[in-house]
């Protein structure tokens, strides 16, 4: 099983009364709350953390894309991977990903990802989420009802731009060009692995399975909501004719490792509160613009009779986060045992670990990372040994890779 180090890059200085005084962490979150000097410190601290994860042997480093968002400060995740390319050596550089409909023309995605693949010598993984409604419809003005069509067309264009050797004409609904011919082309052939972080629609699963991509369910609420999702995904994948290779399935888990179970609350609860109460302060009227979800999905949600809102988070405490499985917390033994159960049950080959969350300090993040790398990761590596990870990047051999010149 692979362990990847995922960073959201949150702003850690939202005020204590944030969720009472302001209506949202996203879209119209006031810019006065952002101090670029603190932002400078944070970006560099976060890059240090990702580089540390590379040195400790994590299989991949993941960044993602959000806009107008105080809990995810990467409107351009490719910039972050570029910043990591030269000072990391072994970990895959994974963008999860470029929200395709937001790049005009999508040829830019094919080009930037090719550049990244070439700069790092083939360690790159390209991810294509549709993107949240907050990012796509509200921050970037995309029409909700046509977003998925635009995304699909952009995907087709990117794949063709990577693989079609001759310049080609593209006469799409959303993009037209007479000469699509990107320079450079990726090192990896036919192209870098494609990972799709997604929600839970049958349409997405079928599409992912048909393309033989890696599907990652990235939510912040642990095993309970994920297990139904992953079961449905595996059912759909089997129906489409995919094998049961666990490396085609990914999952995100908040993890908090301490020396003992008892110490975990002391070391991580403040950051957990910051994350669940401040970072996930999302007003329900922007969570899904009309047309963002298909009518079938809306009907299915209505049938569950669960209100579509994040308000339920407000009353939860540390004990709830742990009991509900949002966070797997405790001693290395506790964490490795619980994680093993979870990933085995869902057949997860690609585990995205969230070891920095909320306003967790640099020191605690590094300790969490170190404890995971030394006391948890080795105990999970044996899982799925009989399968080949077809979704890992195929990089140039180490000795053929360029090293940054010494300063």
């Amino acid at each position, binding site marked *: 099983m692979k362990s990847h180090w995922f960073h959201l890059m949150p702003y850690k200085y939202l005020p204590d009364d944030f969720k009472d005084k302001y209506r949202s962490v996203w879209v119209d979150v006031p810019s006065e709350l952002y101090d670029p000097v603190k932002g400078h410190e944070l970006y560099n601290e976060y890059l240090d953390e990702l580089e540390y994860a590379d040195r400790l042997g994590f299989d991949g480093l993941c960044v993602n894309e959000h806009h107008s968002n105080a809990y995810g400060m990467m409107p351009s995740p490719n910039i972050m991977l570029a910043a990591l390319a030269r000072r990391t050596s072994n970990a895959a550089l994974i963008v999860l990903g470029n929200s395709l409909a937001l790049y005009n023309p999508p040829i830019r995605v094919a080009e930037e990802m090719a550049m990244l693949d070439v700069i790092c010598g083939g360690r790159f993984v390209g991810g294509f989420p549709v993107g949240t409604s907050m990012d796509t*419809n*509200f921050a970037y*003005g995309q*029409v*909700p*009802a*046509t977003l998925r069509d635009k995304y699909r067309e952009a995907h087709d264009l990117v794949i063709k731009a990577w693989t079609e050797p001759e310049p080609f004409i593209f006469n799409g*609904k959303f993009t037209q060009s007479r000469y699509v011919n990107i320079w450079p082309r990726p090192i990896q052939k036919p192209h870098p692995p494609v990972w799709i972080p997604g929600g839970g629609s049958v349409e997405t699963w079928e599409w992912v399975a048909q393309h033989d991509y890696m599907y990652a369910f990235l939510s912040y609420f642990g095993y309970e909501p994920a297990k139904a999702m992953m079961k449905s995904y595996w059912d759909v994948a089997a129906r489409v004719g995919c094998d049961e290779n666990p490396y085609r399935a990914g999952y995100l888990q908040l993890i908090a490792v301490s020396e003992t179970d008892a110490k975990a609350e002391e070391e991580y609860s403040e950051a957990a509160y910051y994350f669940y109460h401040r970072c996930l302060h999302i007003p329900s*009227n*922007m969570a899904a*613009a*009309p*047309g963002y979800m298909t*009518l079938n999905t*809306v*009907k299915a949600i*209505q049938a569950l009779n669960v209100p579509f809102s994040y308000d339920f988070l407000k009353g939860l405490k540390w004990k709830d986060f742990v009991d509900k499985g949002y966070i797997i917390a405790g001693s290395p033994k506790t964490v490795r045992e619980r994680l093993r159960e979870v990933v085995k049950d869902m057949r997860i080959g690609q585990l995205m670990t969230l070891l920095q969350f909320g306003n967790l300090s640099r020191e605690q993040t590094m300790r969490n990372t170190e404890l995971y790398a030394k006391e948890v990761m080795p105990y999970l590596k044996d899982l799925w040994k009989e399968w080949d990870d077809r979704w890992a990047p195929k990089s140039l051999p180490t000795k053929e890779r360029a090293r940054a010149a010494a300063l």
Partner: protein
Amino acid sequence: MQELKVSIRNGKFTTSMQWGGSGEPLLFLHGAGGPMVGAPFLDELAKHFTVYAPAHPGFGAGQGVEHLDDVVDFALYYHDFLDELQIDNPHIVGHSMGGMLAAEMTALSPYRVNRLVLVCPAGLWLDESPIPDFFTFNPQQLFQVALHDPEGPLGQMMIKQFENPELMLEMYKCMASAGKFMWPIPDKGLKRRIHRVQCPTLILWGASDKLIPPVYGDAFLKSIPGSRLVTLPQSGHMPMLEQQDGFVQAVTNFLLE
């Protein structure tokens, strides 16, 4: 009023249409909230006109919105509609999003329209008076801005209807379709075409409209040569429901002039 099934372009579009009355043809184009099936003002208009009130593609019973990419496609669809139903020289009365549509239709084919009535139409944009982002409103917020008296019996009845999950789903569908023509800002090029509207035009506004404020009435007045602006007191964005008699009278008198 009868309800008729309609098929346009060999079934590419199908819909339901309310139809009735006698007199000159009048095409009513509904707004983003949906087709207003059974609303009494249509029966009142049918006393002096032959009223055609179809559901747009993507709203109510209207199918085929996937074939419409923008407002021009939408307007041309309605010209196909008029062609196939052989409706000759109709009056067009459009409300809100339907008003934008009516103006676009007339701009594209000015000699086919008899008289035009725009009821608090969308379609123009004033930076200094931005239309609020109604797509993010829940029903309570929507009726606060759309009605003169949201706490009155009409408001209470309309809010109560939204407790019905089927109606909520229907509203979701309407808003998803409306987004194709109005998201994120309902300014989709009418300003480049509106100069072509030449027929006698009445612009009707509710004085208390907080959804599309009355200042937009002045903007439409300025944009359409020879047009007339009438403001209805005690009315917000739904004058045909809030001041039915005043609305029917204003429209009927204008069209029969």
